[in-house]
């Protein structure tokens, strides 16, 4: 029997994956464990390994398509085996993905009951009634299948001038775009050219779907409230300078960032107020044993929150080094599921973009997220804590944020 290679479930929340790249070709002999393809999931780009030895008979899925877990993507022939021409690979029912990945610590405690809160519908149908993708009549050259009918010269001119040929109404035979159709394009005036800048429709990536689903659910179902303080960073900045000078003098390749200080300050505050290091779990509140800080990292196409586990127990140097490694892996789409799944508290820092202050959306099932702005001229930083009122009341939230502020303003505590 030939072996069906299926779309694997690569993370607990994964329901489908987008086939991103083949790393083997039909006819290639492979061994169990060889990486056959790359798949984009809601979290990262991951590798699909062959489960058995064999020869790739054929690919049965197309690159770029979103396939439910369990869908056949390739057929392997065993050594010396001939695959019948009418062989049909079979779809295997996918194991049910967890609606929301519960933190590991909570898993045992949480009852198996299905979440009573219905998962919110995220853009089930397109909501923009009119998209500027088709030109007003006459119809632009953008055809079925995406091929633009244009003369060689028109194609070259469009490439040179950065024009989108699919937006241009062709006046040549059978609507072919010819050079003169482009002549006045950017400067307007030609009746043949739709001067409006085009809207582009981009299919949701698995990551974008995950962000949309989780944050919509969070903002719609989690009762947020917001607390804001300004922390005087003068001492912390001075402390950071001394610390980095210290590392440099010892030729250690560590450079602690302001963000690293905030991670440590938050982790210590959470350790001090463990009731705030918690999660809502429908019929219970889970207080985490560990302080695991999720740090939002912007990556191409979205963001991801790698975790600095046990941050309250780690030195600033260790946090700094770990954070650098995690951020690099995140940007390279190489985070392992255990590096971004779980976490008890999140930090989102837009200070490097000069944002004065902002309020972040809670990353469920966590109960709080800290939004960090840029230092002002007095070296003060706005800290905004978004809090899940079901888990943390105002007083506890205020104590937590006050502790973070105090930790930053008295940085010596960060090295104790």
């Amino acid at each position, binding site marked *: 029997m030939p072996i069906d290679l299926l779309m694997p479930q690569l993370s607990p929340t994964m329901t489908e994956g987008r086939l991103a790249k083949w790393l083997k070709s039909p006819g290639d002999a492979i061994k169990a464990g060889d990486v056959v393809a790359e798949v984009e999931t809601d979290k990262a780009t991951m590798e699909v390994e062959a489960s058995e030895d064999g020869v790739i008979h054929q690919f049965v899925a197309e690159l770029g398509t979103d396939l439910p877990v369990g869908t056949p993507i390739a057929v392997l022939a065993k050594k010396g085996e001939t695959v019948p021409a009418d062989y049909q690979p079979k779809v295997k029912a996918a194991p049910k993905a967890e609606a929301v990945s519960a933190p590991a610590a909570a898993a045992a405690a949480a009852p198996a009951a299905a979440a009573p809160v219905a998962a919110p519908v995220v853009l089930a149908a397109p909501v923009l009634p009119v998209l500027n993708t088709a030109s007003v009549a006459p119809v632009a050259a953008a055809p079925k299948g995406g091929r633009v009918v244009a*003369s*060689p*010269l*028109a194609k*070259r*001119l469009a490439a*040179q001038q950065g024009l989108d040929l699919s937006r241009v109404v062709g*006046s*040549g*035979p059978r609507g072919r775009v*010819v*050079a003169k159709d482009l002549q006045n394009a950017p400067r307007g005036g030609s009746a043949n050219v739709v001067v409006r800048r085009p809207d582009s429709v981009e299919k949701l990536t698995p990551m974008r779907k995950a962000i949309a689903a989780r944050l919509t659910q969070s903002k719609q179902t989690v009762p947020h409230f917001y607390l804001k303080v300004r922390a005087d960073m003068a001492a912390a900045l001075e402390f950071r300078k001394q610390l980095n000078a210290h590392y440099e003098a010892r030729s250690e390749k560590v450079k602690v960032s302001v963000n690293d200080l905030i991670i440590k300050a938050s982790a210590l505050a959470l350790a001090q107020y463990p009731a705030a290091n918690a999660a809502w779990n429908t019929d219970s509140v889970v207080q985490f044993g560990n302080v695991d800080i999720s740090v939002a990292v912007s990556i191409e196409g979205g963001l991801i929150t790698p975790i600095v586990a046990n941050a309250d127990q780690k030195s600033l140097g260790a946090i700094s080094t770990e954070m650098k490694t995690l951020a690099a892996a995140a940007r390279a789409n190489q985070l392992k599921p255990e590096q971004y799944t779980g976490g008890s508290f999140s930090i989102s820092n837009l200070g490097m973009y000069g944002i004065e202050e902002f309020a972040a959306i809670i990353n469920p099932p966590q109960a709080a997220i800290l939004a960090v702005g840029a230092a002002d001229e007095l070296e003060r930083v706005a800290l905004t804590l978004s809090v899940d009122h079901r888990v943390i009341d105002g007083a506890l939230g205020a104590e937590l944020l006050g502790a973070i502020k105090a930790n930053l303003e008295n940085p010596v505590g960060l090295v104790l």
Partner: protein
Amino acid sequence: MQQYDVVVIGSGPGGYVAAIRASQLGLKVAIVERAEMGGVCLNWGCIPTKALLKAAELKRAVAHAADFGLKVKDEGLDFAKIIGRSRDVAAQLSKGISFLMKKNKIEVIKGEAKFKTDKVLEVAGVGEVGFGHAIIATGARAKQIPGVLEADGKHIWTAREAMVPAELPATLLIIVGGAIGVEFASFYAALGCQVTLCEAQHRIVPAEDEEISALLHKALEKEGMKILINAKVANLKATKTGVSADINGKAESFDRAILAIGVVGNVEGLNLPTPQMGHSGKASGGMVVEKGAIVVNDYYQTGVPHLYAIGDVAGAPWLAHVASHEGVIAAEHIAHTLGKGAKPHPMDYTNIPGCTYCTPQVASTGYTEAAAKEAGHKVKVGRFNYQANGKALAMGEPVGLVKVIFDEATGALLGAHIIGAEATEMISTFVLGRSMEAVEADFLHACLPHPTLSEMIGEAVLNSEGRALNA
């Protein structure tokens, strides 16, 4: 009174093609012709002169037969037979047009037409013909300047007399050196006539690329022709036995002279509904005639929108293939206004091939190098000489040049110019290339057949990129 959807006046390459296209589109069509079916092109232009030039070509071939190892005795020529064959070819084609009219169910009305109103034609000897739309395709005739350059039809010819003389003149003056003049010069020179070609401008075939002009000048002189550029011809007169003229102030005499100074549209006698005539053309002030040509729009509508004019009578370029193309567009536009078929695309006048069938042949399309630069293009020029082409050498035709002009920035083919054997056949590839807006890469990607003259197309393009393989 017979009533038609479309009446075409004139059965030349513009008129008869327009009539066929209109008929194909389901319209009831009549064509009015006062003389031979086929017009000047078939009867007094393109075709009979090509028949004459073939005789000239064979004469040259016989003269070079020994180069190929053939022993051929040249016993001179039967001039009447040469002319006779040319007439036979014309007559055969003219008959072919009558057949085409019948096949396409087009009523042929013989006689001279004039407008009675903008909806009725009066055809001499036939009567009144009613129409919804009319296409004026009456062509043109040789231009003359009364009292200065005037033909008498006996010693001073226009093209029409020049293609049917009773005997071969010993000396011949040709005015001027455009396509028609050069073709007659080439024909008569080959048959042994002493030809003097006078061109008013600073070079012959002034519409062609300068480099091509210079090469043709040299080739024609080598054949024994006398060429005068910047020539002023005055006092052209028929004498008792021949002609006399002052060329650049010097009195000279010849057996015969040919006037080839251009053509002028046949607009007279049609009683065109011009503004002055007060016809019922309500939609406009009437038809406008400028410099012997009827003024038309992109679809060949005159100032009276249901009256169209195509071909030579609608002005330059005076070429049969242009007239045919215009005829198709006019017919399709009429059909479109009647709800039949799509609106046609206007014609691109920057991509009209010009062919001159002298030896060596000259053919071109698009911009000359100078015109391209004048239009603001930075150009890349490629050249390939016939001398380096295997087929040309095998044919014994080592003289010639293929020249291509590309826009440096975009790679657009701006123009192509060929002089040499079969230039007029080879140019079509470039015409198609320009029509499709090919860039240099398209030519380079095409695998052209070997051994052919056409290989020079690819080589010339390669040369424009600085990477010719065989030169």
